[in-house]
């Protein structure tokens, strides 16, 4: 599909770049898939696909919230700490029942979202700084609540982490459902349209009478809740709560997935399909490098290069 579209176009550089930004991530996923099919042993096994999909699910869920924040011309650096906070709360409240524990964890994420959103919407603090403060404080609170790793031996959590429906793991189903939900919200609801308008130009949105503050707070609450859900699911998969390391550098992976997926950092546009593909691309890249015995340090360098390339490709389409 990409090829056809490219051939029809004249050598118009800007349109080519636009296509690259819109569909480059899918092409990248396709190339990585082909490379792996050709060169990686046991790549085409159901087991491997399951493993990869389960690993990508939490990153994708966090990235969905990040896409909303970036679409509103913001960013949420607190997501990794929210995951840690969620896992701590989960462990503490598991004694009261699984659903109550999950509810408390999600409420914790929402509270962080309200704090960040209020700083941004009411006080006018820049999103990077507001969420940076919450990133530090959030992990601190998570560690105060649960100072070290704790095993989670709840049967409900275990089945959430490793159960499946017709061979599709719960984690993947939940991630897919949330992606569809967020895509629907962005495209079909008033909230979605207001969010994009605010990301496009906050002053203009304010002049047009949109409820700018309310929408911004809801955006960061969504991001916090999604990150908390990702924290719960990651805990279920790992069978342990580890507030020290759960979610570290997650903000980076999420931002990468969103940006690589074609959502501009300048706001006003959200591409959920691209975000899904972006998360898959990072996962495949990491898996490919590790499977071919390249050390983890190379994964980090490769991820850094991919971020820069994606942002560079998107640069031409910045707001005028």
């Amino acid at each position: 599909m990409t090829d056809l579209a490219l051939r029809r176009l004249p050598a118009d550089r800007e349109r080519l770049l636009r296509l690259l930004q819109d569909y480059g991530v899918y092409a990248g996923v396709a190339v990585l898939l082909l490379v792996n099919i050709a060169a990686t042993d046991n790549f085409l096994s159901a087991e491997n696909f399951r493993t990869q999909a389960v690993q990508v699910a939490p990153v994708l869920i966090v990235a969905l919230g990040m896409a909303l924040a970036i679409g509103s011309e913001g960013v949420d650096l607190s997501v990794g700490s929210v995951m840690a906070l969620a896992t701590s709360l989960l462990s503490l409240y598991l004694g009261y029942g699984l659903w109550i524990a999950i509810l408390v964890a999600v409420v914790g994420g929402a509270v962080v979202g309200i704090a960040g959103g209020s700083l941004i919407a009411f006080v006018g603090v820049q999103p990077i700084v507001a969420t940076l403060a919450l990133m530090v404080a959030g992990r601190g609170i998570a560690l105060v609540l649960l100072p070290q790793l704790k095993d989670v031996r709840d049967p409900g959590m275990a089945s959430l982490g490793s159960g499946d429906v017709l061979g599709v793991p719960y984690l993947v189903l939940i991630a897919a459902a949330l992606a569809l939900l967020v895509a629907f919200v962005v495209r079909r609801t008033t909230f979605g349209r207001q969010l994009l308008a605010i990301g496009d130009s906050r002053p203009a949105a304010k002049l047009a009478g949109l409820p700018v503050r309310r929408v911004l707070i809801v955006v960061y609450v969504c991001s916090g809740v999604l990150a908390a859900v990702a924290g719960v699911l990651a805990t279920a998969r790992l069978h342990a709560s580890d507030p020290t390391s759960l979610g570290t550098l997650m903000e980076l992976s999420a931002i990468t997935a969103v940006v690589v997926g074609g959502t501009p950092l300048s706001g006003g546009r959200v591409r959920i399909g691209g975000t899904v593909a972006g998360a898959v691309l990072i996962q495949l890249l990491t898996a490919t490098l590790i499977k071919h015995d390249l050390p983890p340090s190379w994964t980090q360098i490769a991820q850094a290069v991919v971020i820069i390339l994606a942002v560079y490709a998107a640069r031409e389409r910045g707001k005028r």
Partner: protein
Amino acid sequence: MNGTATSGASGTGLPGAPGAGSAAPGQDPDVLDDEPAGASRGERLSALAQQHGALVTLVVAVIAASLSFDTFLTGDNLENMAVSSAFLAVVALGMTFVIITGGIDLSVGSLFALGGVLAAWGSRYGTAVALLLRLAVCGLIGLVNGLLIARSRLAPFIVTLAAMLGARGILLAVTDEGTETYLVDKSSFFATLGQSKLLGVGLPVWITLALFVLGAVVLRRGRFGQYVYAVGGNEDAAALMGAPVARTKTAVYTLSGLCAGLAGALNAAWLVSGVTILGNGMELEAISAVVIGGTLLTGGFGFISGSLVGVALLKVIQNVINQIGSLDSAYQQVVSGAFLALVVVAQTWLGRRRRVL
């Protein structure tokens, strides 16, 4: 003591700065000294709070701490705090320039660690190699940051975020995935740089103070400093006035990379080894220190001396938390985060008050 040096330098106005700088909005805090007659008392108070709030808080914190803990005002404790502040202060120095241009540098923590490891590795070939190697590598990464931000117009936070990841990757690659620790020969000149004392105070502290005086002079007196304020105040206006916007931006990120690398090297000399796990979260500490010191994150306004006060305040708070003892490092994070949020909220409100009134 450094604070007086800076305000003294700026108090005399800006001779030899033809027009360019004086047009940048909010550029010179000392405008307040000869406030126009219309300035209200509230406006003046909020400006003063913004300028000297950190210093007042620092004095209060020091007095409170020395009254509460006998162990606070001892020579050992003070010297310890000073040396451990020195490394963060050097990082914050570079960060101040970046933030005044309206940017942000998230890669400093990684560059700090990378600089330390490279210096420790290089020290076996002599101090010159130790210092030049990290100068070359960290400066180069800073330069690439700057070029991508200034020439390709990419967002600073995403470029430096990628650099943070990339530099950490290089660090892991250099140290055999973090398993190798390079030691510095204790008898080498490089080690004495970090270990020796002058007048009872560690050499890193003196080096840091010298760098701050130099930085303050460059920012306040040099043409480069004028450009830095102008770019942060209003980039388009700066360009129209003939300020080399792209070159200035490239320079501040290079400077920040160099500072972070140097701080890492000094730290390695002090610890006599290149420790790979250092520098995590350092970007946040540096940004906090700069912001607490009164520099506006929106750019165009700030002071070098404030960043030094900011670093001192952060370290005093950390020290107090350590002295309380029952509070562990997790509480330290909660307090630091809350404190940063508080300062930024206060700053935004004070700034808004000034603008509105």
